């Protein structure tokens, strides 16, 4: 299949970016990243700078592949990361626009690579539990109801890719932060430090300069792990109670 790629090129964070046009030949069984590999091999053979993009596991669980494809983070398919998007979703002759995630808290490092360390700092502010929970068998010493465990797992499936921030017209990180808070809140091991965690993570989120949530809901639509906006409502609820009710 013949494709026209409109790829964002930017030397570094301070440089002015621009779109570059490339015509390439891809095959429909390729993943989107393999298609970009083809582009880069072509660029290297032409002695040109390859397009920088992030990738790691290429099996949809690491959250490294961050790019906006035709206006949608991780491309057109719901519940799919860029690496799991395959070229059969496109037709020969298509023009595909590829941009980096855009938000002030995700500054571009190069081309399609953005700095998402603001997410790491939100996790460092409280996205953990302070005690050693031991090995896997020790996890079973505290019984957790199946429904509760499933709900916690739904929130825990967040891979921290940042598509929520990329999709949000406000550049808000509420879906990510709320998923991380709720994942731990719903388990007995995480509940202990809950109030402190909510306050600290929200504080760090604001400090990083993320926008304010206006309940647009684009985050959840674009989330490759389909994290629900119910997490956001729960975070609001926990935040209000940790500020006004709990000591």
């Amino acid at each position, binding site marked *: 299949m013949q494709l026209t790629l*409109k790829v964002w090129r930017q030397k570094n964070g301070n440089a002015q970016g621009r*779109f570059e046009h490339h015509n390439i030949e891809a095959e429909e069984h390729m993943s989107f990243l393999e298609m970009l590999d083809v582009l880069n091999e072509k660029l290297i053979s032409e002695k040109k700078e390859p397009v920088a993009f992030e990738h790691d596991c290429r099996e949809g669980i690491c959250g490294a592949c961050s790019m*906006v494809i*035709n*206006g*949608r983070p991780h491309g057109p398919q719901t519940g799919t990361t860029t690496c799991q998007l395959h070229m059969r979703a496109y037709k020969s002759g298509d023009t595909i*626009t590829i*941009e980096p995630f*855009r*938000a*002030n*808290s995700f500054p571009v490092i190069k081309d399609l690579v953005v700095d998402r360390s603001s997410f790491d700092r939100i996790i460092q502010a409280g996205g953990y539990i302070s005690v050693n929970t031991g090995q896997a068998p020790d996890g079973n010493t505290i019984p957790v109801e199946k429904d509760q465990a499933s709900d916690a797992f739904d929130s825990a499936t967040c891979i921290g890719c940042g598509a929520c921030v990329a*999709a*949000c*017209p*406000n*550049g*808000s990180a509420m879906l990510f932060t709320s998923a991380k808070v709720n994942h731990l809140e719903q388990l007995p091991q995480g509940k202990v430090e809950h109030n402190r965690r909510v306050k600290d993570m929200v504080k760090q989120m604001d400090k990083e*300069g*993320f*926008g*304010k*949530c*206006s*309940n*647009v*809901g*684009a985050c959840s*639509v*674009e989330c490759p792990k389909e994290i629900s*906006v*119910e997490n*956001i*409502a*729960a*975070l*609001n*609820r*926990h*935040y*209000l109670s940790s500020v006004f009710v709990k000591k």
Partner: protein
Amino acid sequence: MSLTGLFLISFLIVHLLGNLQLLIPDGGKAFNIYAHFMSTNIVIKFISIGLYVGILLHAIQGIIIVLDNRKAKGSKYAVNTYENGNWLSKNMALLGTFILFFLCVHMGDFWYKVKFTDTLDLITYPDIDYQVKDIYQRVSMAFGNVWIVVIYIVGLIALALHLIHGFQSAFTTLGLQHPKYTPAINVIGILFSVGISLLYALIPLYMYFAKLSNY
């Protein structure tokens, strides 16, 4: 934002109930007596100050959030799709500004003229012993003008759109979401938004056509 929004929604209900009296075919007696009570009662005066503060706060919070969020988003995408959020939720500020503009027209037309000018006739009714301003006459005159009616209809469409997102959004912001009740809240929100705007729109439309049929 959510608290001031819900407060303003509660005002919309009270304001509508009072103003539906314009539709009582008694030459405006019930409405004029009600309006006299509303403009002289001390408790209502305090509530109305709360209302003005509520409107201002809601607008100021809105402006701050829009400016903050613009800064947080930085640059925009070359391609935008519907999935990036529907038009309503992304244009609350635009709709809000429009509603504020409409409010200025609305208050300039009635509130200002009633409170600060002597252009209204005083009227007495046989069964009450005080004079009241004939606000009904003023409203009826305004809604005899087709352009004023059009402005009201457009303003109310903006209100309905603003509320469709605002109503359910306020509940999410306050953390009031539950798989059992949220679908109901969403449906009630849409019905309320459209319903209250339709009932408001009924007043200028009814008065315009009632006047038209009198000629």
